[in-house]
């Protein structure tokens, strides 16, 4: 049984509870100097609870914009967004902010840690924001940092950490409130291969923990971890495919690869 078969298909109608995130006919138009640029041109997208979906596509295809719109960082021009069975595209900026606190975690390519705050404060902030007591927030932070192997960096300033460590802190921050949806924008785009492997391992663990991940990436290795890969081209979905690994019968490396003799 392939991994994607674990998920029930999203039923028609936004109020389906098995469907975590649903977008219909999303359009985003930017206006700059009087010229309208269509970044998204009618995107349909369904994400089941706990599903891991990668978004690929050439630069300028609207990947990041889609992620921002789905997380409410910028409003869609038209179209519907449903999150956890609730229509959210009409929310005010404050409404989106409150929604993000509890249900949406963000991870970015450039980590975007709050430079003024220590690692511990960065991770505790979302919990505090969501109304946790300082004690609860600290406990959760200690768990997360320990799990990500950076417990000893709690008191450090973000600028003193390596890229991989910073991205782990960013991940811990995104997971602080155990959001049901993690939006990741090129999370490994600024990491070397060994740090990339570590972050991927962590993402896989998050996925196994039942949190849904929607991730923009250029890296096929990263994308291949997903249950499904959506390929965007020119603001539209060009392909939406479940990843089917090669048959089980092929086992050893030698079977997959053929050395030219």
């Amino acid at each position, binding site marked *: 049984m392939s991994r994607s078969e674990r998920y029930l298909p999203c039923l028609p109608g936004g109020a389906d509870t098995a469907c975590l995130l649903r977008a219909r006919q999303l359009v985003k138009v930017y206006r700059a100097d009087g010229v309208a640029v269509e970044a998204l041109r009618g995107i349909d997208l369904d994400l089941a609870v706990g599903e891991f979906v990668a978004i690929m596509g050439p630069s300028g295809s609207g990947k*990041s914009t889609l992620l*921002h719109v789905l*997380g409410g*960082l*910028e409003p869609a021009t038209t179209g519907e967004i449903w999150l956890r069975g609730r229509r959210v595209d009409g929310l005010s*900026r*404050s409404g989106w*902010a*409150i*929604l*993000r*606190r*509890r249900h949406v975690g*963000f991870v*970015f*390519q*450039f*980590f*975007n*840690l*709050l*430079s*003024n*705050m*220590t690692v511990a*404060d960065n991770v*505790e*902030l*979302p919990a*505090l*924001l*969501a*109304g*946790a*007591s*300082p004690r609860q*927030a600290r406990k959760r932070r200690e768990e997360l940092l320990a799990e990500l192997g950076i417990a000893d960096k709690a008191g450090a300033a*973000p*600028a003193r950490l390596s*890229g991989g460590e*910073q991205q782990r802190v960013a991940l811990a*921050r995104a997971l602080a409130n155990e959001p049901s949806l993690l939006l990741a*924008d090129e999370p490994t785009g*600024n990491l070397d291969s060994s740090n990339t492997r570590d972050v991927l391992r962590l993402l896989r663990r998050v996925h196994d923990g039942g949190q849904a991940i929607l991730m923009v990436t250029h890296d096929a290795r990263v994308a291949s971890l997903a249950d499904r890969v959506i390929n965007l081209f020119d603001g539209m979905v060009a392909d939406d495919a479940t990843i089917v690994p090669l048959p089980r019968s092929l086992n050893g490396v030698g079977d997959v690869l053929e050395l030219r003799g």
Partner: protein
Amino acid sequence: MRGTLRWARADLRARPSQALLTLGVVAGVVAALVLSTMLLQGAVNPWQQLFARTHGADVLIYFQNGTNTSELSSLPGVRQVGRPYEAASATLEQGPVQSPVELRGMTPVPPAMSTPLIVAGTWLRSSEQDGAVIEASFAAAVHVGVGDKIVVDGIDGTSVPMRVIGIADTADQGFYPQWTPGLIWVQHGLLTAVEPHQSETQEVVGLRLDDASTVATGQVVQTIWNLYNGPTENSAVLRYSTWQQVQNSMASNDRLLGLLLALFGVIALVAAPCAIANVTAGSVLMQRQDIGMLKALGFTPGQVVGMLLAEQTALGAAGAGFGLVAARIMTSSAFVRPPDGTPVGLAPLSGSWVALIGGGAVLTVAIATIIPAWRAGQVSPVAAVQPTPPRGHLSLIARLGLLVRLPPALVLGARDSLTRRLPSALTVVGLAIPMAMITIALICWSTIDGFTRDPGRIGLAAAVTVTPGGGLDTARTLNLISHDHQVLAYYPGAEFDTLLPGDNGTFIARAVGYSSRPYPFQTVQGRMFDAPNEAVAGQGFLTLMHIGVGAWISPTIDGVPVILHIVGRTIEPDNNGDVLDFGLDALSDAGGGGPQLFYALVLKPGVSPAAARATLLAASRDELDVQLVANPADGLEVVKVVIVVAVAVLAVIGLANLLTAAAVGQRDHLHEVGVLKALGLTPRQVTATLVVNTTILTAIGVASGTVAGLVIAPRLINMQGQTSGIGSGIAASLPAATVVEILAIALAIATTAALFLARRTTRMSDSAHLRSPNRPSPPRRHALDNVNSLRTR
């Protein structure tokens, strides 16, 4: 809420210098405001402090001697009754001059209520039975100091010599000569010597009331009047005075001080919010990305605004607190007394003033923060993750500059200051406003200084007036004056209180000199009179009469109708400018008699009026009445202190703005600097680029501020002059050299600060500039563009 607190705490810890800047600016402004208010309030309304410091009486009642005053303490509304003192009327004899005096009998133990406040010498002592303590304004008016011997005549002519052992302030009565008689405290024996008949003396009782409001005070006085002055002819209450009367008498009508108070209020209202808005806007600019990230994490726009507002307001409150404490410390021991003897004590400000200043400062901080905070609330969360597009481009001028091979540092620095519009505008405005205020303050100083240094400019060419009297006739007086080698010129004159047409007030008609040889009035409009039927007038008179220069008037002066043509307007510091000046020949031509003459003496340059007075007094064996001419600037010495404080605070505000601008610039430049260095600009060239950038902005800000100040200040001062009756035309200008000096000093300070910061930026390691994963760097690209265009030149 907790998240907000956590962020604010981290922010304060991460950028203590920014926090200190806000704290310092607010503390400085608050301290300066408190200080200025205390000084000016002291100058405008000295009563409040005197009353507090002397435990003054709310009401003084003069009873006929022997009245039973024991009932007073049981009257409704009376809280405390002072010890009754014996008082007697008398005259102070000084040669030909006689001044009315009230002698008040006291003991060597000063009274608990209305305690005279000794400002020189000592209080009465049992060892010095002939000792007298004189009220300060009276002592100043009659030129008596500690150690002087005086003679007091009783009503029946008994002359009693006394020795002045002390000078004291009191809130019992107003300043002499507005309030007569003058007050002298003596011991009982001396009082009896002057007034042996006890029936002629009075008993003075001070009262403190439960409610000292005007209405309540009036009621108590009425009650006492009714009680003691019943229907019988025998009136036990002779007279009374209330604190309201004293306060009114003491209140200065010098509107210049009032204007200055308002002016410094304006400075605080404009410069301080500007500085605070600058600091806050700077920190918002520097934190755009972090704020965007906060919003991505789930901060609502309202929370972001609230967070910045709360943080800055808390800083403002802390700053205000520091400022109040600092002002308290600075003024706790100080007691300023201008040379004319007017008491200008520094009493602690009332609670409402402190609340007004402190609360106003905090409110100002909050208001100043609103716009930057609102902008921060609007920052898109996407700003956190998307680099902003490069701003600015090489302007035509910059390209031209490169074409003619100007140093690249100069061109790049200039380009930067002209293309980063918002930060540049903040810097320029942030410097221009304090600079304009400093210029205004300095022009105020220069104007006041001009009053003292060159009294002729405000129509006070004569420093001394002499009135013949006593045993000296006019001829001998003239003889004395004309032989005094300190006297440059003298003008005979006469003054008449004259009714305005319609009987709605009076003005002073003054004849000095002759139309052929007029007194050197300072004419600022029209010309000096040079015919017997011509006159000049002060602004106050023209305003009263609703006329202008060129009008004909026909007042009745000294009983004689005169027709005069007003040909000019003078600067007139006397009598609110309600003065009409003409030649003595105008009167004699109209058939006026020979009034009592005085002589206005213009002294030779460098001669002190006091010395000239002493010489004349000695030459006439104290027979002449020699008066020094009061200079309105004497009361304004206190303003100079205020100006110094204000300039210091403004300089701090300007510097704060500059540092904020430099800090914002530094953040933007960090990436650029690395690229410039990597492309081959020497560290010195890079430093020069940054310094040029700051210096150009500073030069624009400082120059425009100074020009604005130079334009505004004379208007403000002349407006003040016009309303106060002195007349416009009193504002002094700053000498060109001083202006250049100010500009040079401001630029030098700015350039030094810029150099310091630029060196720090340049010295940071190259890799730190280029390797910055946390900050996608927008400026990098246009820095490259610049250098490419340098190359392809």
